């Protein structure tokens, strides 16, 4: 018995050792020294691996995708009639040109010749009509793209021309034409997406990776890379370790502490996340229904302090629901409308009936470390005016259903993005009858201004109105606006071409290996 047992144990240990040992020679390439890494600098492979922190599990269908992380990746696969540029302008994509009628109600798009879908079919007017109609469809109440509610009709004038008629003139309508154009007769967008972009979708493995390949028949400047693999790693340490091991070549949205751990094999490109991060206050809940209380909180918070303490100085402070990358709409004077003034804050609280401060809860989604860090600094800053804040971490799903949809919260720290490159996307959400007005902002002046903006078609005038709306939010302290977070991108040495956009996207068509 003893011999048999010993024999078995020896065998088991030998087996373990042998299996680990024999894997050594066959596949793992052992690089020499720190400079060269496996995979990326192989002579054969003109491809990179990008690390992302969450899977694209809402939907691959561009009309149904809601997560910023999903849209960020699929930006490379889909295009609309127009396409955003890195400078914040629009450039024709699937369309070659367009004209607007005299009464500004009809847009006529001439499609570009020879634009192909990833399945080889040519794009025709029928596909455009199908795509726009799908997003404008109101059978479920609201259309997939909110702004499409102004669309009255979409018609194919001929095989290469589409006319879209809207109900009232709009300066922004053309910005909404970045909605993806999909093939009309294809129904598997959610598992095998097909678009017109510089990269085509190849495959995915749930919670593991997404593979894109260069689309050779792309109408525009072809991408440089042949293949991009997105590796999903929800654990932040995993991302850093994979960068260091050579498994990943590029990773966005890193924190300053993470970036500090990377060595000379990487350089860091800094952009902005294009998010409005704020301590969002539920304006319908006591005590936040009193403007003085909200203003007191604004006077208590030191934005630069948060940026320095929690983000090592990376970040751009903001004063309203607009971020700096939006150029002409950003009103810099609002950033310092409220500067830290503890005495003023206390006196405002006293006026409002809270001379000894009060207690409040800050609900934070647990999967976003930047917001958690910000909340912790806020708690300390609010203590100075006598406000005792308690942080409540909730899971993302719970945040979406309870806070965002259900509006069951007192305050929350989160970053709000713009779904498209318009000021309206950031400002419409606070009109009193807007379905996603989760902070319950209710201000008659604001609503009136918004209505005015919708019907103004002079660009300068409209910009002025939007700025007035931002001022309204700041003066009434709708929320305690903090910052636009910095977007730190770690890029392996040897890669170049990472460009930042004023929206949350990762454009891979410009990324390439340096000569």
């Amino acid at each position, binding site marked *: *018995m*003893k011999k048999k*047992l*010993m024999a078995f*144990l020896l065998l*088991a*240990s030998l*087996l*373990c050792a042998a*299996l*680990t040992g*024999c*894997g*050594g020679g*066959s*596949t*793992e390439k052992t*690089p020499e020294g720190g400079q060269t890494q*496996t*995979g990326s600098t192989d002579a054969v492979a003109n491809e990179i*691996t990008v690390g992302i922190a969450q*899977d694209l*599990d*809402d*939907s691959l269908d561009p009309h*149904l995708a*809601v*997560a910023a992380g999903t849209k960020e990746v699929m930006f490379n696969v889909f295009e609309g009639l127009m396409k955003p540029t890195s400078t914040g302008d629009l450039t024709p994509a699937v369309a070659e040109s367009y004209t607007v009628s005299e009464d500004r109600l009809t847009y006529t798009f001439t499609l570009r010749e020879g634009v192909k879908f990833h399945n080889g079919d040519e794009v025709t007017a029928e596909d455009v009509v199908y795509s726009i109609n799908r997003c404008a469809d109101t059978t*479920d*109440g*609201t259309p997939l793209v909110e702004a499409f509610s102004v669309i009255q009709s979409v018609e194919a004038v001929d095989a290469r021309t589409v006319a879209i008629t809207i109900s009232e003139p709009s300066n922004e309508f053309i910005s909404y034409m970045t909605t993806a154009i999909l093939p009309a007769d294809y129904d598997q967008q*959610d*598992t095998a997406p097909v678009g017109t972009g510089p990269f085509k979708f190849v495959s*995915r*493995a*749930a*919670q*593991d990776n997404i593979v894109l390949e260069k689309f050779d028949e792309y109408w525009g400047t072809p991408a440089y890379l042949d293949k991009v693999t997105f*590796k999903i*790693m*929800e*654990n932040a*340490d*995993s991302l850093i*370790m*994979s960068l*260091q*091991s*050579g*498994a*990943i070549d590029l990773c966005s949205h890193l924190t300053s502490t993470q970036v500090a751990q990377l060595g000379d094999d990487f350089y860091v490109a800094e952009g902005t996340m294009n998010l409005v991060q704020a301590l969002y206050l539920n304006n319908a809940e006591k005590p936040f229904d009193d403007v003085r209380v909200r203003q007191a909180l604004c006077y208590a918070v030191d934005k630069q302090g948060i940026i320095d303490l929690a983000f090592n100085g990376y970040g751009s402070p903001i004063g309203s629901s607009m971020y700096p990358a939006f150029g002409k709409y950003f009103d810099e004077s609002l950033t310092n409308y409220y500067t830290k003034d503890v005495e003023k804050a206390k006196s405002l609280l006293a006026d409002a009936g809270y001379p000894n401060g009060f207690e409040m809860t800050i609900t934070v989604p647990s999967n976003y470390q930047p917001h958690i860090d910000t909340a912790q600094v806020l708690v300390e800053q609010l203590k100075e005016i006598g406000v005792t804040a308690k942080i409540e971490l909730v899971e*993302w*799903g*719970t945040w*979406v*259903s*309870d806070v*965002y*949809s259900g509006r069951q919260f007192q305050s929350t720290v989160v970053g709000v993005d713009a779904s498209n490159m318009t000021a309206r996307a950031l400002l419409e959400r606070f009109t009193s009858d807007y379905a*996603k007005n989760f902070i319950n902002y209710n201000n008659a002046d604001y609503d009136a201004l918004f209505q005015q903006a919708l019907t103004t078609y002079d660009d300068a005038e409209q910009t002025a109105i939007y700025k007035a709306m931002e001022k309204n939010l700041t003066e009434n302290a709708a929320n305690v606006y903090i910052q636009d977070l910095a977007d730190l991108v770690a890029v392996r040495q040897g890669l170049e071409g990472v460009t930042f956009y004023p929206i949350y996207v990762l454009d891979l068509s410009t990324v390439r290996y340096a000569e």
Partner: protein
Amino acid sequence: MMTMKYAAKRIVMLLVTMVIVSFLAFVAFSLISGSAAEIMLGTQATPEKVAALEKEMGLDRPLLVRYGEWLLGFFTGNLGTSISYKQPVQQLIAPKVLVTLCLSVLSFLLIVAVSIPLGVRSARRAGGRLDGVSTALNQLCMAVPPFFTGILLTWLFSTVLRWFTHGKFPDLGTDFPGAVKYLFFAAVSIAIPRVAMTVRMLRSTVLGEMQKDYVRTAISRGNDRAGVLYGHVLKNALVPVVTFLAQTMAEIVAGSIVVEQVFAIPGLGRLLVASISNRDYPVVQAIVVILAFWVVLAGTVADLINQRIDPRLRLGGDA
């Protein structure tokens, strides 16, 4: 040896456990806030859209109806379609089951191979010079969580020594040895605390056995200590340890969830966590049932092994 009746009884128990576990998971889902439709719509969610999507996905039907439908599907081999990925659940989890299985088996083998010799040795050297030190070391290993050792091991073996490339998990089908080598490090982080616990347990059972009369008799009759230890004592001391190791299997499975995240291994654990977050109940149900099956199976095998070792435990058959 094993009667039909006994075998049938165990199989029925297995099935009943799986059904109960799946029902509990189903109920748990209906209690937490946030439905799959709400999560899918995310920031686009409006009450009307959520209601429409729920109707489309069949989520507006009563709990028991949905559960009944799932159960029926399960017994006919149809595990349903994932809400997040729109793929059949079988297709989604098949490659991952294999990976987690390998990881669990590897961890288990490692634990057995290391803890039994160490445990016996620890009992033999009880009271000796290094005993205090090894006990302290043991305590330390028991306390360190797999998450932490995982990060340390990755740093040491991937970043510094470059024995494996963290983040590049080789496909099991095409490169089995490479995959096992990658899993080895993950298995070590899972194994360390379990080895420590098993060693402690084995040490106490062996020491307990050594006090018994038959040991004194055997030694006084001239058998050498080692022979007695391995020949007689170990066999008797192993019974509680085998049961303990079966329970360890359940902990290994749970530990693999965390370790998979740290090592970026595409296993069931990560998919389970993400699916719970997305309220993707078909996937969660399937994974939960598989894990329950695995744990109960381990317990059954442990019982069988114990019966082989200790005739007193055999039921209705051999004496």
